Each structure stands twice: as C-alpha cells, then as structure tokens.
C-alpha cells in the first residue's frame, strides 16, 4: 500500500538520483536583466569567482521584467540573511526619483556592496545626419531624429534631460530596446542615440559615426579623437535653473554603474563580511582578466560610497532632484522648457 510518506520519499529519492545532490546554504544572485545582457554576463562571471574564491555555491536567477524593478522589489523583500545578493541597474534611480511604482524607491535602504564599473553615457550621431559637433544642433532647421530607449530606461530619461537643458533641435523617438537602437541607426531611420558606450559600440563602428557629447564628466577611453574621445561634456551647453542638479544626477548615475547589494535590514556584520568579499573578488587578477576578456573595464566603487551617493540623491529627491527631473520629463519636443 502506498502511503503519503512513501510517495514523498519516492519523489525525493527520484529527484536526488536524477540530479546533483542538494547543497547547503547556496548564495542566490538575483540579476535585474534578461539572460545574455551585459549585466547578466558580468554577474555570472562574478558568481563563478565567488564560488572559486570562497567555496560557496551560487544559484543565479534573472528577473529582467519592468527594467529591473521587479528584481529590486524581490531583493527588498528577501530575507536579510546574507544569502541573497541583487545585481541591479542604476537606471532604477531615475524612476525612484519620480516615485514610480515598483519598490525601487527603497534603493537607499538596500545595503550596497559596491559597484563594478562606470557607465559611460554618450550622444552618438551618424554620418548621414551631417552633424559634426554638438553646436550644429543648436538652431538646426530640421530636428535631429534622436533614438531613445523605452520610457522606463535611462536612455529615455537622458534624452529628455538633454532636450530640457540645451537648445539642441531634436525629435525624441522612444521605444527602442537593446539592439533595435543600433539597427535603427545603421538603417538610417535614426540619426542619433544616447546610451552606454559599451552598448553602442556596433553603431559607433559604422563609418562616420562619432560621439559629439558626453552626458557625464567621465573620460572616454580607448577611442580615437576622430570617433569623439575628446567630445565636450553636457556642462558646456546646459542652461537653466535645473542644469546643475540634473548634471550632478547624470554624473552620479554614470559613476554608480552596475551596483550589487544585500536586502535592507541585513545585520551589519554580514554587510561588512560581504563588502570585504566583494572587494576581494573585484581585486582578484583572475576575475579582472576574465571580465576584461569579456569586454568589461572594471572600475569598482566601494559599497559605502554607493550608499552615500544614493542616500544623498534620494533624500533630497522630493524637493530638488526629483522636481528637476520631473520638469525635464514634462518637457515635450519643441516646447520652451528651461
């Protein structure tokens, strides 16, 4: 006679026999992007090196929905026992400042372990646009077709900020995700794009395409002057009362890059232990070599600095930064915004 107990035991033994044995206390890394994305690739490399260095097994899961907001929600709700780490995108910062839904406004409560690299964001134009430098856009008769990401992505927020702070004549076309932005430039549908330097590499490889503006003060590395390594920063063309606040925001966003954290409420000793581990892996030559080979330039930032930056931006969000960003988002093409 088959009892429930025998059935449960049977199920358990079949599972155990047909797969690897259960391992104790694995670390769960929650990645706020889809499989194959740049963040996913570097997070999986990091996972391998955590196991290699500390012997702790790692389980990886992707939660790329809602542009990483679902991952932030899950991290905030996770048990603060040091067994869950979130690998999130700072694109959440813009949404959090505007207080959109999704729990991402708990960003300053997450215990950050640090950031792996900077996020160099630039404005690239195609040769077909006829634009040689940013000044050409000011007073241009025909608006430049500026391809941007979906409305919850950093690229879209920065397109709006550019439009809000400068006199460039652009027509913002949102809704382009991932590779479709590059294809739109290659096919000639779009004339310009704002995004990360890494992500826009295929577009930049096209003959005549170049960077004409840096959206933050980070230097452009590894490119020739012909491709725009010496392009000016947005500071030079920005004007209006929101200029200083929004430029500071974009700089902070770029320096935060890809951030890694523990759930809010994690005990301080666990936070300290994991910050040490994160710093040790980030400085490990084997990890650096593998990350470099995969196309990542590592520029780590300590967790305390990440927490401090996010706390500064989000605590003043309602009155200053959030309000300025809100005005930029309300600014429509052709309207006088500043």
């Amino acid at each position, binding site marked *: *006679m*088959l009892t429930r107990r*025998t*059935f449960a035991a*049977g*199920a358990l*033994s*079949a*599972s*155990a*026999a*047909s*797969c690897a044995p259960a391992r104790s206390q694995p670390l769960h890394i929650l990645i706020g992007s*889809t*499989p*194959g*994305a*740049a963040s*996913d*690739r570097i997070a999986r490399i990091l996972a391998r090196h955590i196991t290699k260095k500390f012997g702790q097994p790692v*389980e*990886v*899961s992707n939660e790329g*929905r*809602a*542009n990483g*907001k*679902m991952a932030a*929600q899950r991290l905030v709700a996770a048990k603060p026992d040091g067994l869950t780490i979130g690998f999130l995108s700072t694109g959440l910062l813009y949404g959090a400042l505007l207080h959109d*839904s*999704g*729990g991402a406004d708990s960003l300053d409560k997450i215990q950050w372990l640090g950031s792996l690299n900077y996020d160099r964001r630039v404005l690239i134009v195609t040769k077909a646009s006829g634009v040689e430098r940013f000044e050409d856009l000011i007073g241009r008769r025909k608006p430049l*077709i500026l391809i941007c990401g*979906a*409305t*919850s992505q950093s690229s879209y927020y920065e397109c709006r900020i550019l439009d809000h702070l400068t006199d460039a004549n652009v*027509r913002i*076309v*949102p*809704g382009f*995700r*991932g*590779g*479709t932005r*590059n*294809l*739109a430039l*290659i*096919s*000639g*549908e*779009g004339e310009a794009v704002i995004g990360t330097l890494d992500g826009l*590499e*295929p577009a930049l*490889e*096209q*003959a005549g395409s170049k960077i004409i503006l840096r959206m933050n003060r980070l230097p452009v590395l590894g490119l020739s002057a012909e491709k725009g390594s010496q392009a000016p920063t947005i500071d030079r063309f920005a004007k209006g009362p929101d200029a200083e606040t929004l430029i500071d925001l974009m700089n902070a966003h770029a320096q935060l890059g890809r951030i890694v954290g523990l759930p809010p409420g994690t005990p301080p000793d666990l936070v300290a232990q994991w910050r040490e581990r994160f710093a040790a892996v980030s400085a490990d030559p084997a990890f650096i070599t593998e990350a470099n*080979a*995969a*196309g990542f330039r590592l520029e780590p930032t300590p967790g305390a600095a990440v927490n401090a930056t996010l706390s500064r931006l989000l605590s003043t969000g309602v009155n200053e930064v959030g309000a300025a960003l809100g005005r930029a988002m309300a600014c429509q093409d052709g309207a006088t915004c500043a």
Partner: protein
Amino acid sequence: MSAFFQFLAASASPGQVLLALTVGTLAGLVAGLTPGVNGRVGLLLVTPLAVTMGPVAGAVFLVAFHSVVHTSGSVPAILLGVPTSATEAATVIDGYAMTRKGESARAIGATLGSSVVGGVIGALLLLTLAPVALGAARYFGAPETAAMSLMGLLAISALSGGSMAGGLMVASLGVIIAAIGLDAFSGYPRFTFGTTALWDGINPAAVVSGLFVVPELAVRFAPVPRGLKDGASLGAVMAGFVETLSHRWLLLRTSLLGALVGMAPGLGASVAVWIAYGHARQTEPSVVPYGEGAIAGVIAPEAANNAKEGGALAPALFFGVPSSSGMGILLAAFSVLGVEVGPRMLDTNPGFVYLMGLTNIGSNLLAAPICILLAPAMARFASIRGEAVAPMALAAGVAASLMTAPGAETLAMIAVFSVIGLLLKAAHLPRAPLLLGFILAPALESGVVRSMMIQGWSAFTRPGVVSILLIALGVAAYALWSRSRPRAVAPKAPDAPTRWLPAAIGLVATLLLLAMLDLAKAPLTARTLPSLAAAIGLGAAGVCAWRLWRGRGQARKAFEGYDLLVLGLFGAMLFLASLVDIAVAAALFAFATLASRAKLSYRVAAAAACGLGGLIWCLERLGQ
C-alpha cells in the same frame, strides 16, 4: 569562397570544426526535445562548453546548436499536442491533428523535411547578402516591419475556420491582451492594474498554455481516437519527408518569409511562423481542411522557423546587432569566445561569415538523418493512452511556462488564459486568431508609431512598404479567388454553435468594452491601435450575437465536455505551485490524475510522478 578556405586553414583544423558541428547539432537536437529548454536557455547552458573549444570551433558549435534547436523542438509538441511556445503553436494546429489521425510519423517527416529546406534557404540568403548587407539594411526599417505585420494579420480570415466574425472578435481580444503593459512611447500603463509584474506585458508561454494546452488535454479522452495508422515506420517518416518537396513553392515562399522576418529587429520566430502559417492557409490548396491535419500547415511554419535563423544571423554578424534575444545571447557568447563580429569583420574576416553560413547549412543537413532515424521511436509516443499522457503533458506545459518567467504571476496568467481557452473551445470559436493578434500587434503598433514619428505619412510610400502591401493584397485576393473555384482549398465546415457560445461572446465583448473605456484616457500612441481593434472586435461580436439570435430556434450542439476532475486537480496544482515548488505540485498532480483517470497502479503512478517531478526540478536548476 577563397576567403573562407584561407580563414579555415589559418584558424582551426577541419577535424575540429567538423567535430564542433556534429556535437553542436546533437546538443541542439537534444535541447529542442527538452521541455522548457528553448534556444535562449540552451545557449546559456552550452556556452561554457563552447569556451573550451576555442574561438572558431566554439562559434561553429554555438551556431550549429542554435540552427537546429527548432528542428526537433516541434516534435514533442506535435506528438502530445502541447506547444510550449507561440512558435510551436502554429505547427501543432495541423501537426497534432495528424497525430490524432494516426499519422504522427508522416507529420514528423514533414517537419524534418521543411526544417532542413528552410534552414538551408535561410543560410543561402545569409551568404548572398554578405556583400550587400549595409545597403540592404537601409531598405528594411519600421515601416517595412509594420507592413509585414499587417500582412500577417490579413491571415485572420484564413484562420477563422469559416466564421470570419468569430475570428475577428477573438483576434481583437488578442490585440488587447498584447497591449497589456507600459506603452513604450508614452510610458502609459495599459491594463496593468497597478502591478509592476504586468509592465512588460503577458508571458506568451502562459497564453499558449492556457489557450491550447489546457483545453486540448482537459477533454475526456475516451472519444479521441489514437493509434498509429502509419505504423510509425521509417518508411512513413520518409514519406512525410519527401512529401514536403511536392510543396516546393510553398517551401520557398515561407522560407524567404522566415528569413526576412528573422532579419527584422524586434520580430521573432513566433511572428515568422504565424505569418507563414497564415500564408499557407491563404494560398496552398489542401485536400484535408486546415486545422484537421493539412500537411501544408506543418510545412509552412517549420520552413519559416528554421529559415529565420539564417536571416537573424545577418544583422548579428554584419553589424554586431542582435535582432532577437536569442541572437543577443549568441553575440554575448561570441564575445566570451573572443570572436569579434560587426561591420569591420566583412572587410577583415569575411571567411568567418562564410563559415557561419556553411555551419548553418551543415547542421541542418546533419540534423535530418539523425532525426529521421530517431523519428519512428519518437512517433510511438503517440500510441500511448491519452489519459496517461495528458497529466504529464499538462504539468510539463505549466513547468515550461514557469521556466520562462518564474513567479505567481505566470501561474495566474495560465489560470486566466485557461478559462478563456476552455470557453472558446467549448463555444467552437477559433483560438488561433487570438494568438495571431497577440503575436503581431506589438510589431504593428511599434512599426506604425515609429514610422509616423520619424517620417510621417511618407513612410508608407517607401518601395519596401508598397511592395509588401501589394504582395499582401495579392495573396488575399488570390485566397478569395481560389476559394470560389472548384478543387481549390478545401473549406473547413463552420462549427455548429454550442450552448457555450453566448457566454463566450458575452465574455469577449465585455472585455473589449472595458478595454475601450479604459483606453479613453490614454495618450494617442497608447490608445490608437488597441481602441481600433476593440471597436472592430465589438462590431464582430455584434455580428456573432445577431447570428446567434437569428438562429435561436435551432438546436444547439452540446459540447462533449471537459474532464472536470482533471480540471479541478489542475487548478489545485496551479494553487499549490504558487505555495511550493512546481516540481512538487506537478508530481502530486501527475500522481493523482494517473491513479484516478488512467487507472494506473499506485506504484506505477508514483514512479511516473516522481520521475516527472525530478525532471522538472533538474530543468529548473539547469538554467541557474
């Protein structure tokens, strides 16, 4: 070609490349047969293995893997009637109908034949395009994407099974379901009910599970004839394989369609197969009505599916830009291997492009004999009793959906779409148009909005758009003309209304009306297409209701009915899966249904349930 041989001689030994091609092909076929492991997940799993092979052999391994993963992917779906993605759903309509007639081996043969031919045509297009890639890219943008999607939507009439109004009504509901989520142009949340989980819309796997898997497997199995009319012999498989060649023009057309869709950014395999399936129903005469086992209904989507791979490789290799998430993972894997692709490669390393094109061809040619030899054994699955297969397949379908997007939201989506699917089937309303609207509406909407924002009305006078629309109109006109001729496409007799029809019309009309009212406050970009679809759908619902009222005196057919015990246990499984792991819930569901419905002994049922639970548990962890 000399560039190819020079490259090969300098980069890797032919032996290494052939070994990588063979292992990649075998791994791709195994991944295709495994529920929940599609091209994307599969690539993630095998990339570490590719790294050990070195750049060239590793790239050959990955491309071979990705080229054939769809070749075997449709086989379980055809045999069990369980599509685990929108891509397989098109093939299953006629493929599973063939299985139920005992022609599973012929259906598998046709699948393999069309996959091989489609794959080779897609690869040849890739090789042909290499010298003119940049120029060609300028002629395919948002307006052409919109035109292609519109062409696909014109197939609604062909998929409506004799009730155009019913087809339009459910297709409109598909458009509304596709609209769920944040509008990419305005950020307006359409029908998200305040939850972030719906920002990215509805999980297609959940829609397919609910619409097709649950209604097909929850019927009482006694009246469904099963067996092996064709004997599942090698001869029967070969007959199906060879029969594809008698549809050579359909093969060519749908392969080219698939390759073109593969190149287009944002479209994917599911769009390719549905456009191809609709095209077959519009243009290819069939003695057996479509939906009841027409072999052309298997050939068209399978050819398009494999041809898409060659098309999708073009932007990936020539520009370093992925046109789909699968290609994104492939490019990421190339980056890990140290293989640099992009525009410079065409000048500096054209041999690599030729190698990838030939790998695509080679893997398809290699996959065919392997699959043909294994096909008779696979086809014998179809002879297993439906009562025994159904619970396992139902649980596997849910698990596969959950693997694409884990979480209670996916379970809730499966439950909602199961109710819609069960009701539509009970009412004898077509379900394929709903999926067509769901798959094609996002591409149509984004194509039209982008075109208007960038180019205005002049976008629709581009040569590519005009050509595609003329072809679409020509196809539609041909379909109408051929139907009026004797010995043309065998018409499917309209299904008699059932007692469930008023409830189904009422539900769909209510959903459309609520959507229309909710959209009134949305921005222009967010409301135009869904509102138009809802208005058309409401009109069609009105026609359906009027016909129903006019024939109110006629006796309505009683639906043969679902197995309420299986449905109840299925609901319990969904609930349990939200509390514990799906592996445990699936095992308990399988045990209960196998013991109560298939009348298996407790020991056999427990063994089967444990095996299923263990397999799901392993597959869940494979992706981590």
